Structures are given as structure tokens and as C-alpha cells.
């Protein structure tokens, strides 16, 4: 593997101090957006790809098809359909998701399956999809990379685990990169809770639902669902209380994590007042609203394209932080 040796140029990771709120998505085709929303994606991080070319996508599709076919020949279980299925791979660019000049364009990989005895007019079924992206990646870091490296640190996949392994395996050997699971940690889940609540100012999020587990025997799950209007009022009250903010606090596009902490503490103290149970003794597992859901085990679903960029900017940042180098 070609590991990146940290030099003076490669900056140390910054801590996420703020998160950008929604940006308009005019540049992305609606049919591309439709592929990304309302679907639960499993998240991974991937280290920069060596000598990846956006111009070679047809070649990559051919190579990956051949790789999957070869692995199947060797009897590797692919879990999808019968042995007679043929797999067809396509690579495409989802233009417009890259936010800054430093972000490489997002690449979508799809694997379609057609049973051998299917009729000609039967459309092939997409059995696996995945996409590599970098949305609002840290510009200092991206600029510090040697020229031959393309940084698309966020990998989202959906479909049979066997195919996920094969795709990752091919990407690893072709571009000298490596993958790892991107768990959505407590901090990120709390960010999302605050972010989605903030979005209620523009879009009805219906409810803010949070699921905790407490470490008792047997384990106790607590599902705490808050009315969206009340959650928003609590969120606004925690933002206004920061003395540094001006009157136009709500127009600010940046959120400080200390505000997120105060918001969560408010929710937990209301809970404590009634049940005298300290939720911070447990672990936040899942946050959801009408805008989507996020789970600790690295699964995310975005239900509205409006906030896609903000969420995936946050996840890009998480992926960059999680990388081993």
C-alpha cells in the first residue's frame, strides 16, 4: 500500500467546531438526487485513491465486472440470486455534489443483475449501489495531498454484504487504498439531532426521536420522542443564551458544538426531572426525524434532498477524521 507519510504540509485534523447549514442543490440532477435520498446507506471511510481518473470510468466498470465474475467462478458466495446471474457494473459521476474547487466529483457505482434465463425485455435489477464522495472536505488537507491522489473519503453502500466486500476489495487492490467502518459516534448523532431540529424552522420535521440504551441487565432501551415545535423552542433558547451571539443569531450558518451540548442537556434534564434516570449513563444509538435517520452502527438515511449537503459535509469531516493517517 502507498501510505501517505504525514509531512509538515499535511495538517493535523481540526476538531469540528461548526457545521454549515443547507446550501441549494441546483447543480445536481433530480434523478441523481432521487438515487441518494430515502435509502439507508452503510457508511465507511476510505483513504485517498492512487491514480484514480474520472475519465477512466468505463474501463473501471469493465474491470470490476470481470473481477466479480471471476470471484463468482471461484465459488465465492455473492448471496444475490442464482448462480446463473450475470452482473453488470456501471460507474458514473454525480455532478454538482462537490461543493468546493478542491472536492473531487462524486462517483456512483452500481451493480445490476440479470438472471440468465430472463427475457430480453426484462429490465436488469440494481442489486448493489455505492458512492464515493468528498463534500466540503478540509481544503488545507486536500491541497496538501500529492498530485496523484484523489480524496473521496466517504463511501456509502447499499445491498448484499458479499458484493460490498467484492467492490471494496477491487477498489483496494486497484487504487492502493483501504476501507474502515465509519461509525456515527455520539457527537455526530447529537449534531444531527440539533441540525434537524434547526431545520424545523424551514421544513416540518414532525418529531425528533432519540433512542438510548442503558447498560443494565437486561439492556434497557429508551425511546424519547419530542414534539418538533417544542424541540425547536428549546434549541432556540439554547442558542440565544450564548452571550456572544448577536440578535441575528438564527441567520448564522454556523452552529457551535457547545450549543448542541446545551440542547442535549436540556432534553436530558427534562427526562431526569420525571424519571430520575441519567441518560448520559447510557449511549445514544439512533436519532431520527422526518428528514432522515442515523444510527450508531454507521447507517444513515436522508429523506429530504434539501439538507443532503450539510449532512454529508458533516460525514465527510467524520470520514477524514477517522482515517488512520
Amino acid at each position, binding site marked *: 500500500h502507498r501510505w501517505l507519510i504525514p509531512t509538515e504540509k499535511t495538517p493535523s485534523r481540526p476538531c469540528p467546531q461548526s457545521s454549515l447549514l443547507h446550501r441549494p442543490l441546483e447543480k445536481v440532477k433530480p434523478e441523481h438526487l432521487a438515487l441518494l435520498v430515502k435509502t439507508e446507506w452503510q457508511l465507511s471511510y476510505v483513504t485517498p485513491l492512487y491514480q484514480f481518473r474520472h475519465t477512466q470510468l468505463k474501463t473501471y466498470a469493465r474491470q470490476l465486472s470481470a473481477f466479480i465474475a471471476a470471484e463468482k467462478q471461484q465459488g465465492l458466495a455473492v448471496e444475490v440470486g442464482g448462480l446463473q446471474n450475470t452482473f453488470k457494473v456501471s460507474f458514473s459521476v454525480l455532478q454538482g455534489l462537490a461543493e468546493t474547487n478542491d472536492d473531487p466529483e462524486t462517483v456512483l457505482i452500481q451493480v445490476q443483475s440479470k438472471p440468465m434465463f430472463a427475457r430480453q425485455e426484462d429490465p436488469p435489477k440494481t442489486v448493489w449501489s455505492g458512492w464515493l464522495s468528498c463534500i466540503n472536505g478540509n481544503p488545507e488537507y486536500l491541497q496538501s495531498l500529492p498530485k496523484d491522489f484523489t480524496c473521496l473519503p466517504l463511501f456509502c453502500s447499499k445491498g448484499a454484504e458479499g458484493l460490498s466486500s467484492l467492490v471494496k476489495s477491487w477498489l483496494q487492490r486497484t487504487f492502493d487504498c483501504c476501507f474502515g467502518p465509519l461509525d456515527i459516534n455520539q457527537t455526530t448523532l447529537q449534531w444531527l439531532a440539533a441540525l434537524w431540529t434547526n431545520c424545523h424552522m424551514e421544513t416540518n420535521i414532525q418529531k425528533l426521536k432519540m433512542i438510548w440504551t*442503558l*447498560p*443494565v*441487565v*437486561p*439492556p*434497557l*432501551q*429508551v*425511546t*424519547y*420522542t*419530542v*414534539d418538533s415545535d*417544542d424541540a425547536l*423552542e*428549546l434549541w432556540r*433558547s*439554547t442558542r*440565544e*443564551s450564548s452571550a456572544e451571539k448577536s440578535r441575528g443569531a438564527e441567520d448564522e450558518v454556523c452552529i457551535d458544538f457547545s450549543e448542541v451540548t446545551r440542547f442535549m442537556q*436540556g432534553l436530558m*434534564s*427534562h*427526562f431526569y*426531572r*420525571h*424519571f*430520575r*434516570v*441519567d441518560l448520559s*449513563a*447510557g449511549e445514544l444509538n439512533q436519532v431520527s426525524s422526518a428528514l432522515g435517520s442515523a444510527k450508531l452502527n454507521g447507517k444513515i438515511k436522508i429523506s429530504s434532498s434539501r439538507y443532503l449537503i450539510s449532512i454529508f459535509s458533516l460525514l465527510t469531516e467524520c470520514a477524514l477524521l477517522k482515517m488512520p493517517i
Partner: protein
Amino acid sequence: MDNLAKHLLQRLMRRIPASMLKSTLDKWGRLTAEKRKSLDFTQSKWTITQELVALYVTENPNQGMWHTFQLLDPEDDAHSVELMQFKEQFKSHLSELKRNVSVKIKKHTDEAVWIRVAWGDGLSRPNHLKATYVVHYLQTPYVFVNALSSKNKPLLLQALTLSTKHQQIKAANLSGQKLTALRDLLMRQYQQVFPTKYPSPLPEKLRIEKVQAEASASRHRMAGETFGDGMLPALQSAFFQLETKFKDPTNEAMTQRDEPFICSVKFSSSNLLESLRHCASSGIASTPVTPLLSSIPLKGRNYFVITDNVPTA
């Protein structure tokens, strides 16, 4: 038994030739000899299928969703109602309220009276595959009901009230999958054992450790007093609808609001009472345990609406 399983059973039964039915069920070996004897193979396959489903439900009471009702205002002779009388009265009252129902009542060895009501309408015969099941222990105020539609609910409840010689029946705010857990919670059949001693604290000179051990012993004691000791009924969830004001001294803006902060909390576990007991004994829940949580075992309910006027509903 879910609809898919019932559907599969029906199809299987149709395909097995009638003459081979008895021997097939014998070979299958899942029914006891006693149960197999209770099946009348001279009946139609459809009838036998329905009886198999009924057998399954009574053998697996911890599936499906049971709702609890409480009988109120007993008449003077309510405590002397016995089985034969109850059976006759229930069948008679129900058929007066609705034609075309089929009722089967049987008392089990644990004194539970199981009632199976198959509902028909003007066009079709009563369908035992979609029957409502009722479990009642005579001379107790509780009735457990499974698979009752809102259409038939008032009829069934009225028949139950009249035949047990009560004047009213109301929802008891206790629901769950495990009938035995609901029953045990209400009947206080689970052990409420108060152990007489706890692990003795450490040597006198280690004061801090002694204080901690005492605090721990105190937590364990209070946890046991609130939820019970030993095995607890396997209640699986509790739901609280909260409509109380937000009060937090560090947040003036929210505390000054007049409107309540609307939210709901659901606790779930494979054994909720044991989880809550462990929360109390481990310190995750402060002791003494809040009335909201202690109401679950004390009042035998798992659905609560909490407002500022009624702190423990």
C-alpha cells in the same frame, strides 16, 4: 400466530388427504396425546384447521398483543359467579348483542377461563381463524383480550360485564405480548421476597469504602422494595405521554413558558422490571425511585399520560 402462518397451515391442511390427517399429525409429533385426542377427525378439515390454530394460541399465550380491562362496581353476587353460570350467561348475552357468533369456553388447569369468540357477519360463517381470545380468572377483576376489533369491542365488553355481574368495565392501561407477564404483574403472583441480609461492609477503618458499601446496600434494598426480588414478570415495555411544563433553573426562557413540553418516552427491554430494578440498584436511576416508574409494578399498568395536574396519573 401471524396471518402468514395461518395461511400456510390452511394450504397444508387442504393438501393432506382427509384419510391421512390423523396419522400425519401423529407423526408430526408436536401435539401431546391428550391434545390429539381432543381433535375430532370426523369434522371437516376447515373445522380441524381452526381448532389447530386455537390450540396453538392457547399453548403460546406469549404471542400477539394482549390488552387488559378491569371490571368495576361488582354486584352483591359477583363473587359467587361460578363457571357453568358464567358460560351460560356470557354466551347468552353475546348472542343477544350479535347474531352469528360462535363461542367456545374452557377452563384450564391453572384456573384461567379461556374464551374463544369467532365473529361472523350477515354473509359469512364465524371465522375461528380470526377469533378473539379472552382470558379471565373468575372472581378477579381483570380480563385479558387479544385480537379484538373496535367494531366488536363494545359487544364483547358488555357481555363480559353482565356475565360477571359487574356494572362497568374500563381499559386498565396495561398491554403487552406476554400474557403471563401481565397476569403475574396484576395478580402479584411473583415473589416479593425481602432478603434479610446484604453483603456485610468492609472493615471499620476503611470509612469511604464502608460508606459506599452502605449506599450500595441501600440502593439494592430500595430497588428490591420497589420492584420486587427474585424473578420478575417479563413485562416488555412501558409508555409515558408527557405533557408537563419544562422546568430547568439554567434555562429561564423555557421555564417561563406557559405551554407544556410535549414528548413521549417508551422503555423497552426483554424484562423491563428487571432492567429498572438494575437501574435503581446500580445508581443509574436515583433512589428512592420516582413514582412514575414505581407505578408500573405498584399499579400494574404500563401506559401513562402525565400532566402537571396529575403528577403520577
